[in-house]
């Protein structure tokens, strides 16, 4: 009996050794990963922005799989029990607009976009937010460019302060600055100058400081302060999915479009202006 057990043990040792070698040889030649299942990609991407008290135009519809514009979709906006059909904009593939004047974008109203294509209906809704309240500024003229006297102290004249109401930092705002001169003169900041990347994201502040280095040109500027909705803010975020694994997993980007992708949102804004002058 003892003899038999010893033989069994030796046999198992041999088996273990051979299986180790065989398994190594088999698996070292790794297999190709299987082809991913991408699911149904016959869907549309909508880029729809509504601006309070502005006509509806520039609604973009394109294919999800290859981003080709779609100019033959049925596109409509639904609001207050009324439906407004949009028309393709000539010479602008994939763009749609509303031709009449019955569709008014009013603060507080809810709007739903509906797009029929690929025998499917994609849709998304938004509510027009109120404009920023009590937008104010500390000056209307700022200095810009390299100081005429390099030894002079950089002072507040190069900074413009803006402020508005945003109690408890609950709302988000986006600031846009335009030069409105017909032939603007470029500000010279020197050879190594790199423009700062300010005002690229929505903020939940109640103030902003514009400095001369944010500008490209001298002259008159328009400042638009948009009040933006949460669905728009989410575009600036990335979604990370976690489920007890400790490793992030990619998810679809934020979107408020059902059965499709993209964004449908509304903005409201307050406007002011200032002038940038040479020192």
């Amino acid at each position, binding site marked *: 009996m003892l003899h038999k057990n010893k033989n069994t043990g*030796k046999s198992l040792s041999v088996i273990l*050794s051979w299986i180790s070698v065989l398994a190594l040889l088999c698996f070292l030649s790794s297999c190709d990963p*299987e082809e991913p299942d991408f699911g149904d990609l016959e869907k549309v991407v909508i880029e729809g922005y509504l601006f309070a008290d502005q006509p509806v135009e520039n609604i973009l519809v394109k294919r999800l799989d290859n981003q080709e514009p779609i100019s033959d979709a049925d596109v409509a906006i639904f609001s207050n029990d009324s439906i407004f059909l949009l028309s393709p904009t000539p010479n602008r593939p994939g763009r749609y607009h509303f031709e009449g004047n019955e569709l008014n974008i009013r603060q507080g109203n809810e709007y739903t976009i509906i797009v029929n294509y690929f025998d499917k209906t994609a849709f998304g809704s938004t509510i027009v937010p109120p404009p920023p309240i009590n937008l104010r500024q500390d000056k209307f003229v700022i200095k810009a460019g390299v100081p005429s006297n390099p030894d002079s102290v950089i002072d507040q004249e190069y900074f413009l302060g803006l402020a508005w109401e945003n109690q408890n930092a609950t709302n988000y705002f986006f600031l846009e600055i335009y030069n409105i001169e017909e032939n603007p003169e470029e500000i010279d900041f020197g050879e*190594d100058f790199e423009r700062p990347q300010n005002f690229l994201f929505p903020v939940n502040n109640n103030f902003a400081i514009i400095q001369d280095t944010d500008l490209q040109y001298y002259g008159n500027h328009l400042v638009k302060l948009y009040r933006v909705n949460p669905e728009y803010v989410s575009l600036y975020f*990335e979604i990370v999915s976690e489920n*007890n694994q400790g*490793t992030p997993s990619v998810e679809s980007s934020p979107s408020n479009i059902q059965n499709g992708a993209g964004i449908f949102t509304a903005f409201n804004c307050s406007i002011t202006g200032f002038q940038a002058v040479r020192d």
Partner: protein
Amino acid sequence: MSLVGLTQDYAEIRITEKLEQQQLTEVLQLLGEKYNLKFAYDNSTLSDQEINLSLTNEKLNNALTKILEGTGLEFTVLQSTIIIKAKASGEIESMSPTRFNFPLNGLIIDKQTGESLPNSIIKIEGVLYGTVSNTDGYFTLLNVPSDTCTIVFSYLGYKTLRLKLDPFSETQNLQIELISAPEMLNEVMILDQAFRTVKSGNEPGQVALNPTQLSSLPSLGELDLLKTLQLLPGISGTNESSAGLFVRGGTPDQNLILFDGFTIYYLDHFFGIFSAFNANAVKDLQLYKTAFPAKYGERVSSVVDITGKSGNMNKPSFGMGLNLLSANFTLEVPIKNKVSFLLAARRSYTDVVQSPLYNSLFDNISGENEKVELPIGGSRRFINKEIDPNFYYFDINGKITYKPSEKDILSFSYYQGRDKLKTNYNVGEILDPDISFGFDYSENDASEWGTEGFSLRWGRQWNKKFYSNINLGKSEYISEFERNRNLRVYLDEESQITNTTFTEENDVKDFMLRWDNEWNFHPNSKLEFGLLFNENDILYKVTSTDFELANLSDKGKQKSIYFQNTSRLFKKLSLSLGLRINDFSLTEQYYFQPRGSLTYNIGKNISLKAGAGKYYQFINRVISESLFSSSRDFWVLTDGENFPVISGNHFLAGFAYETSDFLFDIEAYWKSTDGLLENLRLTEPFFEIPGPTEAFFTGDGVARGIDFFLQKKTGKHTGWIGYSLARVDHNFPQLNNGNDFPALHDQRHELKIVNMYGIKKWDFSLTWVYGSGRPYTSPSAIYDLNLLGGAQKPFLYVGVKNNTRLPDYHRLDFSATYNYNIGKVGKGQVGLALINLYDRDNIKFRQIQGISLGDNSPDGQRLIVADVKLLGFTPNVFLNFKF
């Protein structure tokens, strides 16, 4: 003849005698008097035996063997008495039994240290059934058929002891002394004995692990209990960046980890590279992979029940170890044979000396130094963000055990494990040197995380049928993160300073009072019952300077009662039925959890097994991934609404064929789990913006699979092959269009081959782990949107969740250990471990980001795919010694 049971004193005795024509009785008397030995024998069996022998400095066992040679006698030792008796084939074998169906009880201890051996197996040879010693090593074997049976005592990592009963044998309050395998290493005669690292347990789905044998397996640093478990089928072995256990489709937060009765909430050191348990402080580990008994609750996947080492009861000992990351020591001090004290500690010296191994591991975790563009206006340039980490971890185990009587054991066990990381980022830039205009910017992160706990336990063997155990304990998990950002903008001598502070804190307090009982009320039945009172006090708070971003503090109480009856029916069937009832204060509900398991023996070597159970869990762990900021996972109590009660059902069926040399075991399982959490977070790359940026979804999952285990237990070459075929699907109504998708830890195939080879003083091991690719999500499409201000940004569309898989994982590890003696009093080990021998590029996860190349055409859109890799080839050396 047998060495088993010789006390330490006896083992060291050397005999020098010249025996000429002396009767055996005279020889025994002579030895007894001269060497202070206690012999017991029946005079009638020794009559007229004459001895002629010359002994020179012979070990006692060799001397006795020579003396008894040719006499037809053998010796065995029981409770410091050397019993001389006829060999099994001699007269006593043919003696008629005088006692029938009687109980046998006693205590099983380590011969060298006097420590109790919990979960030892006691069986009657030739009979299929037996029993298991309890936490304190006490056992009662009821219904022993006759007093000529042989009782077999076995414990993982110890030499099996066969005790042949005879009509004169003691049957009450026996003290059984087993010899640990390492103590036998220098004994050539026992090289053929079993050296087992793991053992399939007595109950379905159960596995036992022997910490003393771990040094023969490759490890990165300290001996690692949980990493060894990962070499078993049914437990994922491919998540090397986590010491957490993915057991049969469950996740680490669904495992109950008990250390001397109190719960451990955080298992890792060094971001998951090591487990937080010091193997030198652990005596026993029992893992229940599926269908665990009613004694355990409050988790839905598996149970790891760890018993801490109580320390040497016989003599002081001291051990030390050193490797490329950390050092450790163990001190064991007995006090008057009634009290033992153990202190074991480990600490990495990574904050003082950064070895190549540390740098390799840390780089693997963190990636290279980042190059970032700071969100500060002005004429800035790209600035290297210099990271200056200061990291270390430590853990301490302390235990005092007091045996006031033969029946009582009091113990106090303490554990603390901590990881601490500090990182400083400092940058400064002079924007205009002429006018002294510039800024200093610094970020200081401080993180600390780990578990601290204690238990105070009283165990008493009231009588041969009743044992009880009261355990009072507390454990506390903390995870603290603080980031201070300081910006100083200066102009000439004036400066403006902006300080912001971000803190994240998770504190889980767990108070526990446990009362467990075992009542052998019938020769064929054992009833286990008990109560548990448990209070969880959880704080999760996030603040940004003075603004509170989150506060999920909560407190909940649980009351549990359980009963479990294990009966032996028809000699071949062991049936265990139990019920656990929980009362949870936050949901104000009772939760009934029936459990059951059975083992049916077909013949001597083959058994069938099955098990089933219902399980509930009232605490959830939410993962918050962030490198460089410690474990920012946080625990929350279930409230039945936002954080659901997790519930699970287990079903298990299996088959085992076991001989003295090998084991072949198959288990098939099916586990369902409800109340799973998926956390979707919106992350913004630059700012910590407060707001509703987090969503929790709940879903359910099903795991099913088959585990195969073939183990060779004896000989110079031991080891096993484990193969798992498994599938884990999840379903979340709000994700993936409500369709099932494979869980992130779904791995269809996993193969593990463990080879251990011992020759003379060398131990070699070679382990190979293969796992088929885990799923991840590959985006289906990328599209652009124009944003306010004229910017264009790419966005991802994911059609199907976890729609493809990473490349296969495989890794070969090797270790060589040389065992040596340090004089007559100590033992040492020096070794080399080579991890990932052929430097396989295994992938931890795949990061995917959309990027626009500035071209608005579809061709201008690309995806960036970055593979976060696991460890490449990594060597380590270690040195251990013990006196």
